[in-house]
């Protein structure tokens, strides 16, 4: 999320991640034979021992298993799949929160994520302080953030509550602020994880409108994870179907939805 980095290519042993802000690249996101293996230990003690010795046994589970797909710039791609298909893990790797075990990931452009909207705020700080903190972490200058903040506050409809500590907010209020921030900071790539059912019906409609307007803005690439095939059809032009961390189907959204509903 740091904007100061022009290009970053990091090798993590067998895995490599390339991140830059090259908006002219026709590819926005590319996954090339990506595996993500979670290590499951019997308990925390085993996990601690494993940091000192290589002989501790553990189970492994592949959340992404040889996952390959490509998302072109300006495209709206839907990721369809049942629970545990590895959709969220894939999105987390795109945002850079977690690291692949092997394979190659390319991300060209700044990523903003609407993942678990109410999470990721500091409960002890006020709404306003959280927004300022996020702006800094996103790498915005003072001037840029001062310009964006009124819009964020207005969109969140929090009113006077914005200066109250976050822990006093309801979950709907947190999610509203989270959505307002993530959708206001002009990303190149927007990652949406079933976030569009935020708050009441009126606000949810407002969110859907905002996402469509972002998507109409040229160049913004959207990756959309959902169980709702109707929303996927509304927003996306292409879809891929995941199961057990693998790509089962990739193609036009109508075909993808049909494939998903028939399996």
């Amino acid at each position: 999320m740091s904007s100061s980095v022009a290009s970053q290519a990091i090798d993590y042993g067998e895995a490599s991640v390339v991140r830059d802000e090259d908006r002219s690249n026709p590819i926005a996101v590319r996954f090339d034979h990506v595996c993500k293996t979670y290590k499951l230990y019997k308990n925390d003690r085993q996990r601690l021992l494993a940091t000192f010795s290589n002989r501790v046994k553990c189970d492994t589970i592949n959340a992404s298993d040889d996952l390959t797909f490509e998302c072109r710039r300006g495209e709206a791609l839907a990721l369809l799949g049942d629970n545990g298909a590895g959709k969220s893990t894939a999105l987390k790797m795109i945002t850079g929160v977690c690291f692949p075990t092997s394979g190659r990931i390319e991300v060209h452009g700044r990523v903003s994520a609407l993942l678990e909207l109410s999470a990721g705020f500091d409960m002890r700080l006020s709404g306003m302080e959280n927004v300022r903190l996020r702006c800094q972490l996103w790498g915005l200058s003072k001037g840029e953030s001062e310009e964006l903040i009124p819009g964020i506050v207005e969109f969140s409809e929090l009113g006077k509550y914005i200066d109250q500590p976050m822990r006093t907010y309801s979950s709907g209020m947190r999610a509203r602020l989270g959505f307002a921030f993530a959708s206001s900071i002009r990303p190149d790539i927007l990652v949406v994880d079933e976030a569009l059912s935020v708050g009441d019906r009126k606000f949810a409609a407002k969110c859907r409108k905002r996402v469509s307007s972002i998507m109409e803005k040229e160049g913004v690439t959207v990756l959309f994870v959902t169980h709702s095939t109707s929303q996927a059809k509304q927003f996306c032009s292409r879809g891929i179907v995941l199961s057990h961390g693998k790509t089962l189907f990739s193609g036009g959204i109508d075909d993808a939805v049909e494939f998903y509903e028939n399996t």
Partner: protein
Amino acid sequence: MLATLKQILSENWQWRHQIWDLAKIDLIKTYRGAALGKVWLFTKPAVYILVYWFTLSVGMRSGHDVNGQPFLLWLATGVFPWFFMSDAINTGSDVYRRYPYLVNRLKFPLSVISTFYTLSIMIIFACTMLFTLAVCLLTGVHLSRYLLQLPLVMVIMFVFWVAWSIMLSPLGAVSKDFSNLIKTLSTPFFWLSGILFQLSSLPEIGQRVMAFNPVAWCVEAVRDCFVYKEWIWERPDELIPFLVVFAVVVLLALRNFKRLYKEVPDVL
């Protein structure tokens, strides 16, 4: 190892503008929710010093002037650094749990969390040092040129405790037992490190062992500036063991960080 060191340094360099602001936000977070706010950052150490002074000086009648300087100054120059180190041991050793959302909700370099947290407690420490200085000037306590090494001592302490935090935080994130173990060690550190007694009163063997205790070295170094009036490099039998410990901590920090930083977001 070298690659990990380069990675940590470049992460910190890239985020240098944010580190200061994040440290300030950490301070706000600490005193938020209290009407008196900032006052609490300084009240706790002040109360502790008065209590120790009362116990040692009035109660046990063992509070004599040290090297011609007032006992209260000797006490303050031990207890103020201890408060810094106590935070570094208790919270700094498990700092990812203080900022879970920076670990697994946002893309943020883990090593920078250690840096800005240590900086935030360093700011408090610097304020208490300025306060001590002001009180000395107002009450006419004699200060010397040895005070000039205080900034150097503070930089050394800062780097050491950042490395300490990078060394232990990944282990603390993986295992709650481990972070509890370190927190349990904080009380022995306090009583054994010569904060409330003079290390020179220990038997020879005790002094040898204490030379490997980083808390003891830091406290002695701050007291060198105010009370003992010696340069920190004038006693190599204390400086060299500390530097050895410093090197070991840095190496372990690189090893643990390299081994675990990809796993931490998965387990926290």
